[in-house]
């Protein structure tokens, strides 16, 4: 399936871009799967997505946890804990 991925704050700065369109293999079904998939890119990706770093995820503008399912056409965002206010 095709999804769009957005990165924010220090995650954006680490991977060095803010958005990408990705064609995912059918084995990627959840946020956890997607993190594992991105971690395989090596270097900063591995550091960010395979460790126990706190990375929050949203699907279509809703905060979700790691077991959330991803569907074709979704907008998935990864970001550190929020610090507004």
């Amino acid at each position, binding site marked *: 399936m095709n999804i769009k991925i*957005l990165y*924010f*704050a*220090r995650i954006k700065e680490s991977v060095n871009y803010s958005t990408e369109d990705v064609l995912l293999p059918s084995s990627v079904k959840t946020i956890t799967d997607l993190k594992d998939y991105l971690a395989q890119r090596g270097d900063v990706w591995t550091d960010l997505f395979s460790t126990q770093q706190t990375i929050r995820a*949203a699907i279509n*503008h*809703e*905060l979700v946890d790691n077991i959330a399912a991803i569907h074709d056409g979704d907008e998935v*965002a990864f*970001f*550190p804990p*929020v*610090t*507004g*206010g």
Partner: protein
Amino acid sequence: MTVRIQTEDFDVAAELATLKSSKADVGAIVTFIGMVRDLDDGDIVKTLTLEHYPGMTEKSLSAIEQEAKSRWNINQSLIIHRVGALKPSDQIVLVVVTSPHRAEAFAACEFIMDYLKTKAPFWKKE
């Protein structure tokens, strides 16, 4: 029930005047103003930049307002959050809640701020 995300500063007095002009039976107005604390370690005044997730930000703040409205008897609410470059003592966020009763206005305003701090997609970078 209003949410605004903006780079420019906000005028608390003007916002209060607008809310007060409503005909509702308001007995209590609770206002929270969040300001950039002094980040200064020495003589250099630091600035910070506030980044957000356009689209999700507005949606999450509206959801926060809806949740507050479902829990307490509130007449009106307003959330203004700034983004972009900010310096110490600049205003960052304004939350105003009006209600017939003070306890509900306090509870709803504090709830909105707590929720905003933990759920709304803003990030500060020094």
